[in-house]
């Protein structure tokens, strides 16, 4: 772990840049002046109290939410209202949701091959081969022909990860991927995510799994009231939080 923490990312190119990003929900200032650089291969864990804007932040990156001021540049493309631009970015960015959001009317295999076939125009056979190899990677190839409703929560979330990976994304966004899971299923999902991290994927994870943050994160970001309050390497972040709000938050989630 020490080796990981020492990894020098200063010479690596940025794949995501946020410049003075602001967003409001009505009168509520949900993101206030966010600046963030994500390097290629970097793993970032974002934590913070509920309503702090962390989910909104990563949802702005693939335009599920629209920001109102500032620039977001993903893989060299500046996000704008241009639909072509948005679709281009979404092809490069995979997303995993808290509530899985698998398509219940399609089999697991069809869930995985849908985007490659329709968005990337991959031939069906090839898409199915890719899908099966990914299902192997998340260790549930035997579920390929079932429907999402027949799988456990942990299995569904692993399918959701495989589905996002099917598009061969450069960046993966995780929006509280383990929050909706029964406790005994959290580990199987985290294991898959850790494996993915070790393979060098660029990852932004909104999560409160601090064990996961310690194991793979290059940087932990703490958000509160729409601001990035503090960010640091995980060792430093957990051992020596600087800001009072960070200390309070860590005290609340680590008190057991």
């Amino acid at each position: 772990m020490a080796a990981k923490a020492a990894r020098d990312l200063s010479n690596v190119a940025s794949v995501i840049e946020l410049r003075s990003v602001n967003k409001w929900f009505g009168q509520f200032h949900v993101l206030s002046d966010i600046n963030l650089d994500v390097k290629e291969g970097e793993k970032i864990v974002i934590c913070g109290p509920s309503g702090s804007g962390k989910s909104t932040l990563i949802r702005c990156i693939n335009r599920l939410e629209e920001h109102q001021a500032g620039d977001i540049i993903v893989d060299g493309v500046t996000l704008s209202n241009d639909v072509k631009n948005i679709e281009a970015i979404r092809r490069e960015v995979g997303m995993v949701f808290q509530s899985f959001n698998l398509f219940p009317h399609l089999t697991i295999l069809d869930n995985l091959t849908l985007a490659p076939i329709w968005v990337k125009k991959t031939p069906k056979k090839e898409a199915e081969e890719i899908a099966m190899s990914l299902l192997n990677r998340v260790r549930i190839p035997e579920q390929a022909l079932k429907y999402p409703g027949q799988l456990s929560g942990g299995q569904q979330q692993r399918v959701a990860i495989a589905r996002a990976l099917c598009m061969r994304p450069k960046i993966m966004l995780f929006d509280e991927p383990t929050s909706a899971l029964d406790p005994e299923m959290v580990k199987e999902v985290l294991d898959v995510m850790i494996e993915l991290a070790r393979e060098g994927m660029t990852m932004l994870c909104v999560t409160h799994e601090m064990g996961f943050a310690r194991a793979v994160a290059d940087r932990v970001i703490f958000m509160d009231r729409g601001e990035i309050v503090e960010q640091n390497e995980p060792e430093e972040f957990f051992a020596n939080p600087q800001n009072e709000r960070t200390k309070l938050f860590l005290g609340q989630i680590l008190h057991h």
Partner: protein
Amino acid sequence: MSDDAVPVGERRQLAPPVDDSGALGWMRRHLFSSWSNGITTVVLVVAIGWILSNFLEWAVFTANLTAATGSECRGGGACWALIREKYRYIFFGSFPYEQHWRPLFAVIAMLAMLVLSADRRMWNWRLLVIWGVGSFVTFLLMFGQIHIPLSLFLFVALAVGGIGMNLRKAIANTGEMNTYRALAAVGLVGLVLRIVGILPAWSLAIAPLSYVETSLWGGIPVTMILATYGLAFAFPYGVLLALGRRSNLPLIKGLCVGFIELIRGVPLISLLIMASVMLPLFLPSGTTIDKFLRAQVAVILFAGAYIAEVIRGGLQSLPKGQFEAADAMGLSYPQKTLLIILPQALRVVIPPLINTFIGFFKDTSLVLIIGIFDFLNTANQALVDPNWAGFPGEVYLFAAFIYFIFCFSMSRYSKYLEVELNKGTRR
């Protein structure tokens, strides 16, 4: 239990208790479980028995099937002889009598078309073929002659070419793409030339039978055509309205909301009367649109608004996450709508949708207001004959029975669809 000694975790799994009380036991539990329950059962059985025996007495045991005129029927039970005498008129209306085989086969063609499209395995390009062939046969039989104008051929060429160019862009080879381009070009150039007037108003005449105009159509084919094509067009139209109503574009949303509210705010009858009486006043003199076609369009517009609201319910029932997941994958709006949203939304609304369909099947009978002879209207007309005056019950019961067969089939189909489409997806 003897298993008490077995430690927790190693007990054997027991089968649920079996109900072995038999028919008497079932009756005791469900029909006579208490004094009040028992009395209710007895009263209801006696009441049902009394009504049923009276009805059977009238409809079967004392019924007259053979009478030659109405006066012979009087005094006894049901006069089914009237139906025997008039059924050809009730079914086919004023269609030339010796040509009745034509509406008969038209009805058979439509039934075949509907039964085939009910099968889920046909829900692909086959559906287009089934409806193309079925509709062609139906209208050829009903009209006797069909003139296909040149502009229709050109339009089809343009449509096929255009759709092919867009949908098969990534998959088709050069030869196939060139075919689409050629089709689209021929269609477009031809249409422009036709509109400018350089190409003549030529049409392909298919005329194997004598021409029968729509004012002579009547009975079951009229009801079936109005309902089948009314709903077949109203359904996609309603889907578009429902999607439009949820659009982010204010103009499209406003138009859809306005249309839906306007149509829902007036009775179908007033819409039919407008289509029949008022519309011709606005048309330039000399142009006429067939009355049957006008009624058909009114039914489509009306049904579309109702179907749109039913489908909107389905769209709203989908969790936001489904839209977001589709967006996050990079699916375009049409892909998201056709592959993710509609398949789920329509599944949810099958019961209310078929409910609307059944309602509209029966509402087509309102066209009698503007003098179109649908099935109920021809049944009505059968009562006018002075030789057979005085037996409305028999005729309306017969009409009700035919309507019931159609509506009950739709209801059962709804049930089948629900089960079929939810296979495997149920938790």
